[in-house]
Every structure is written in structure tokens, then in C-alpha cells.
């Protein structure tokens, strides 16, 4: 198909990895039949993280070498950030999961920038080592895990599970209900009773807000990463869609997406930070109210 204008080119955006649905790898059967390309990439990312951390922390010394130093730097920096948000008391409990989310999301986001991810796969051959990019049956072998809704939802669900556990552990079930629905700000007497209906109403809104947290977390991450993938695919094919052929099509497929690669490096980092910071803030909101409640209780007791 020949496209002769910019508008026409952008009207034919090439969706990353063939679409939102992460497809199964063709030709697999038995136990491996359920494997999707995002699961394959997630496993590879997991193995890479495992290998690097094992190598970096296998022989730890008081004076660290390069890899150990890097891992220590990352963990110390993350711990400082998490501790700064959730406080010294809660930080040791939530840090491992929040740091895991950050490291995994960052690696998963950046895995989409590795050459071959999203472009090598199964489809209709149209030339030497070349598949038809507009073939709707094209199945990439690898797909960035965070460009799959199942993964982003899994990340959000795991966090919400941890959030529920830490909140109940810190406040208790009754404390959590009180934290959500009871009037805040040290009110007492008639004012407390007068404002109770409003706070109950606000509490229901907060419950809805809490229920939407995994949705917003997962869709924000998915949207950014998937859009980035789609952008890179579209930029890679834009020359061909504008009528370039042969060497010129190849050169444009290399040069045009290059600036967007740098942007995607930044987007991948920012999205990992945003996801983790939001999770930390959600934890901080519940635990901060808990401490305030204890203070109020202590004051009222006096």
C-alpha cells in the first residue's frame, strides 16, 4: 500500500505486537500451550534480574566491587525514597515489594527497547527476513511484559493485596473502617455527630477510589508502555508507508525511531517511578492516619 502524505501515514498506525491482546506463541502445545509472548518476555526479564542479582551479591564484601556497588546504590536509594514517604516504621515492611515493583517494571519497560522485541515473530513473509507489518496474524515472539494488561493488572493486584495486608495489620479491621468513615480532624461532641453523615458519604467515595486504584495503576502503565511500543513501530514503518523502498526504507526505519527510543528510555523510567511512588503514597495515606488516630486517642485519654 502506497501512502503519499504525512496525514495518510499517521492514519495507518501500526499497533505494537499486533494489538492489545497478548497472543499465544504459535506452534506450542501441551504444558507450554498457554504461553503468551509477554509471559515469555516476563520470564526472560525475571531470569535476567535473577542472574544479575546473584552475580552481584554472591560474594559480598565490605568494600564493594562494581556490580555489588550498583545493586547497593539502587537498593539504598529506593529504601531512602520509600522511607521518606511511608516513614521509618512501615518502610521495612513495604520496601521489598515496592522495590520489586520498581525494578521489575523498569526492566520490563526497557525490555521493549531491545532490538527484536515486538518485531521478531511469526507472520506472513514479504521479503528476506521481513514480515508484513500490517498482517493482523503477526505474532511477535517477545512483547514487553508491561505492554500486556494482564501483567500491569497483576502488578497492581499484588500491590493492592500487600496494601490491604499492611493496612489491616497497622489499623485492624475496625480501625480501617473508622479510618475510612469516621470524622477526622479531632472533632468531638455535636460537631462529630453532625458531620458523621458527610464523612460516611466521603468514606464511600474513598472506598470507590480505593477500588479504582488497581485500575488506574494498571491502565496508566499499560497505556504509556503500549503507546510507546506503538509509536516505535509506527516510526519504524513510516518510511515504507510513505513510499520509500529498499535502502531508503531501511535507513528511515533506523533513523526515524531513534529519537523516540531515547524518549522511551525516559518514559520507561518515569512510569516505573510513578507506579512505585503512587503505591508508596497509598501506603503512607493509610499509615499516617493510623499514627494520627493513635495521637488523638492518646490526647483524648489524657
Amino acid at each position, binding site marked *: 500500500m502506497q501512502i503519499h502524505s504525512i496525514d495518510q501515514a499517521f492514519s495507518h498506525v501500526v499497533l505494537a505486537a499486533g494489538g*492489545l491482546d497478548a497472543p499465544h506463541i504459535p506452534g506450542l502445545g501441551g504444558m507450554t500451550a498457554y504461553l503468551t509472548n*509477554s509471559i515469555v518476555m516476563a520470564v526472560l526479564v*525475571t531470569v535476567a534480574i535473577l542472574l544479575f542479582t546473584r552475580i552481584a551479591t554472591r560474594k559480598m564484601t*565490605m568494600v564493594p566491587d562494581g556490580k555489588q556497588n550498583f*545493586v547497593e546504590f539502587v537498593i539504598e536509594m529506593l529504601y531512602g525514597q520509600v522511607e521518606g514517604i511511608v516513614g521509618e516504621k512501615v518502610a521495612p515492611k513495604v520496601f521489598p515489594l515496592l522495590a520489586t515493583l520498581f525494578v521489575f517494571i523498569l526492566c520490563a519497560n526497557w525490555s521493549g527497547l531491545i532490538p527484536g522485541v515486538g518485531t521478531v515473530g511469526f507472520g506472513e513473509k514479504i521479503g528476506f527476513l521481513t514480515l508484513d507489518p500490517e498482517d493482523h496474524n503477526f505474532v511477535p515472539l517477545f512483547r514487553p511484559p508491561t505492554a500486556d*494488561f494482564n501483567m500491569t*493488572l497483576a502488578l497492581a493486584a499484588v500491590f493492592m493485596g500487600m496494601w490491604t495486608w499492611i493496612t489491616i495489620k497497622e489499623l485492624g479491621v475496625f480501625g480501617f473502617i473508622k479510618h475510612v468513615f469516621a470524622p477526622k480532624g479531632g472533632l468531638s461532641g455535636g460537631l462529630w455527630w453532625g458531620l458523621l453523615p458527610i464523612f460516611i458519604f466521603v468514606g464511600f467515595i474513598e472506598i470507590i477510589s480505593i477500588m479504582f486504584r488497581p485500575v488506574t495503576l494498571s491502565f496508566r502503565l499499560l497505556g504509556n508502555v503500549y503507546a510507546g511500543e506503538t509509536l516505535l513501530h509506527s516510526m519504524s514503518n513510516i518510511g515504507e508507508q510513505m513510499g520509500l523502498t529498499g535502502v531508503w526504507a531501511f535507513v528511515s526505519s533506523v533513523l526515524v525511531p531513534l529519537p523516540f527510543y531515547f524518549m522511551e528510555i525516559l518514559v520507561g523510567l518515569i512510569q516505573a517511578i510513578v507506579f512505585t511512588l503512587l503505591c508508596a503514597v497509598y501506603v503512607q495515606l493509610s499509615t499516617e492516619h493510623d499514627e494520627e488516630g493513635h495521637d488523638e486517642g492518646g490526647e483524648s485519654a489524657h
Partner: protein
Amino acid sequence: MEILETFGFSLEKFAAQVIIVGIVFFILYKSAYGPVLAMLEQRRRRIADGEANLEKIREQMEQAESNVQEKIDKANAEADRMIAEAKDSAESVREQKTQAAIVEAGKIIAKANEAAKLEHEQLMAELKGEFGRLVIDTTEKVTGKVLDNKDQERINQETAGQVAL
């Protein structure tokens, strides 16, 4: 649920991804967070100990410097005292020696005076004797006679009486 499926949600895939996240968490928890946080804590404690030791050493240094200064001041004071004592002692010895020398000089002068007086008397006696003999010889030559012992004794006495100095 239909919206979720539009975005590619599948319970099996979701469960698989949850398991993968769990595995990553387990791996990082066991091989990274635990050892690294323990190492950081160990290093922090060592640095804190080092700082504490440094502070202790600094205090000991200050204490040692203070002790040394105190000893130096004490030694200086002792030295000043000893020098003053030595000066006093030297003055006393000098005075004693001077007095002793004066006494000794007085004795020597007295002895010398005594010896000079004795020698003077002896010389005077010899002079008188010699003078007497010269008078006798002269008298004998003038008178032409030999004086006897009685005359000689008388002339000697008279001459000695005349030459009393």
C-alpha cells in the same frame, strides 16, 4: 468483564503474571534485599563504630596533649626552681670562698710581715756586728794598737748604741 477482555484480560494469563511477579519478589527478597540491607546495616554500624572510636581517640589525644603540657609546665617550673637554687648556692659558695681567701691572704701577709721583721732584725744584728768590727778595725789602724777583748766589747756596745735604728 467485557471491558477487561477488550484489553486482553484472561484469568489464566493474569494468574501466570501474578506468579511471575511473586517469583521476582521472592528472588529479589532472598538474593538482593536481605543481603544488601544487612551489608548496608553492617557498614553503617562499622562507620558509626569508627566514628565513635575516632572521637574516643581524639579525646585521648587531647587528654594526652594536656598531660604532656602539664608535665612540660611542671618540668619548666622545677627547672626554674633548680636554677634559682643553684644560683643561690653558687652565691653562698662564692662568698664562703671569698671569705676563706681573705682569711688566707691575711695569714699569708702576717707570715710575710713576721718573716720580713725577723729578717730585718737579723740583718740589723749582722749590720751592727759588721759595723762594730769596722769601727774596731778602724780604731786599731788609727791608734796603732791592738785592742783587747774588753775594748772590743766596749766599742761594739757603744757602736751598737750609736747605730740604733
